[in-house]
């Protein structure tokens, strides 16, 4: 974080002399908020495994300042909805959301949380945006860790810009050209030396 690069450089202006910069208070606040997301993991289903992988050292979302999970909604500002939400659980989730203090953001992790997936039936809520507003949707069943990181960075970008509209993580593979961008290539066993 120490050195200002890329997008961050655009929000500050060099001052007249050495040793100070000027910026807008909102931009500075947003910059601080996006790097100190305290998260509340609402983990209900198999996507939780992917969430654990994300918090482990290999993918490690603590690199983005989203390190400390808080199991009290009053101390957190990013709600991760990880997994299927049933109708029976919906009041609980809404109450958790309402208990969170502003500013707060919601990330729908995986297909079930985003739209219900194939749990489009009598028991489940087809997408948590039916009961609480969502900021970022990460599709996938479960999503790849790269997609979750993309989602987290997309959210940070939205916080910086003050953009309240929901966003969807796009796939890294372009289906028209079959080009992959940084995805892990699976290899056949016999080709592995």
């Amino acid at each position, binding site marked *: 974080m120490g050195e200002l690069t890329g997008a961050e450089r655009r929000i500050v202006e060099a001052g007249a002399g050495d040793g100070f910069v000027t910026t807008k208070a909102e931009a500075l606040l947003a910059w601080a908020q996006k790097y100190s997301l305290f998260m509340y993991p609402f983990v209900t289903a198999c996507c939780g495994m992917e969430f654990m992988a994300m918090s482990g050292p290999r993918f490690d979302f603590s690199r983005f300042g989203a390190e400390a999970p808080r199991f009290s909604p009053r101390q957190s500002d990013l709600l991760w909805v990880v997994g299927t939400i049933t*109708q029976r659980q919906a*009041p609980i989730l809404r109450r958790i959301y309402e208990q969170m203090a502003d500013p707060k953001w919601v990330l729908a992790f995986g297909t079930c949380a985003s*739209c219900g997936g194939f749990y489009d039936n009598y028991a489940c809520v087809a997408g948590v945006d039916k009961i*609480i507003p969502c900021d970022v*949707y990460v599709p996938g*069943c479960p999503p790849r860790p790269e997609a979750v990181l993309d989602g987290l960075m997309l959210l940070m970008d939205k916080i910086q810009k003050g953009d309240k509209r*929901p966003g969807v993580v796009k796939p890294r593979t372009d289906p028209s050209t079959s080009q992959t961008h940084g995805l892990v290539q699976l290899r056949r066993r016999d080709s592995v030396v």
Partner: protein
Amino acid sequence: MAKVLIELVRQHFPGAVLEAHAQHGDETIVVDPPRWHEVATWLRSAAPASMDMLSDLTAVDYPDRDPRFEIVAHFYSLTRGHRLRMKARVGARDGTGARIRSLADLWGSANWLEREAWDMFGVVFDGHPDLRRILLYPEFEGHPLRKDYDAQRIQPLIEYRDVPDIDKVAPFGPHEGMSFGRQTHARRASDDGADTEVFPGGEPS
């Protein structure tokens, strides 16, 4: 092994076994519903049966049959290592009169399994100590695994948010990992495969 058992049941309860078949080690008897508990008691305690474990108890809805529901119990003997499936057919075609004697006094596991069968199919188990819904909430009306339960019917506990496009489909398409689900298929059929924009005003950058 269990073919012998079927014969024993026939001998002990003349007229109670309506049907029986044994194929590939898959022994099944269909018993007369009023004698369901009596046969089960014998299977539990008689030495040649010794069915000390109730592995599963559930129901099946055959809407075109009369009686409509089939109660299915799977027994296993840990001491003898054999299995038996016992069925009983209950209930009128309109869904009423689906009742049978509970097995909860014989096997503890029957308690929750019968509650599930009640929850999903609305089969009443007479003599059950605590016949409540087990998976769904008390406010739920009807029994969702009955074939006449409307597949589109949901019963939310809290009201959905009052915003436009709340019934929108997934905010992403089949190539983004959403190739299944009823909504997606309906949308595909109406759009002829085209991906429509679900956020009015365009995708945020």
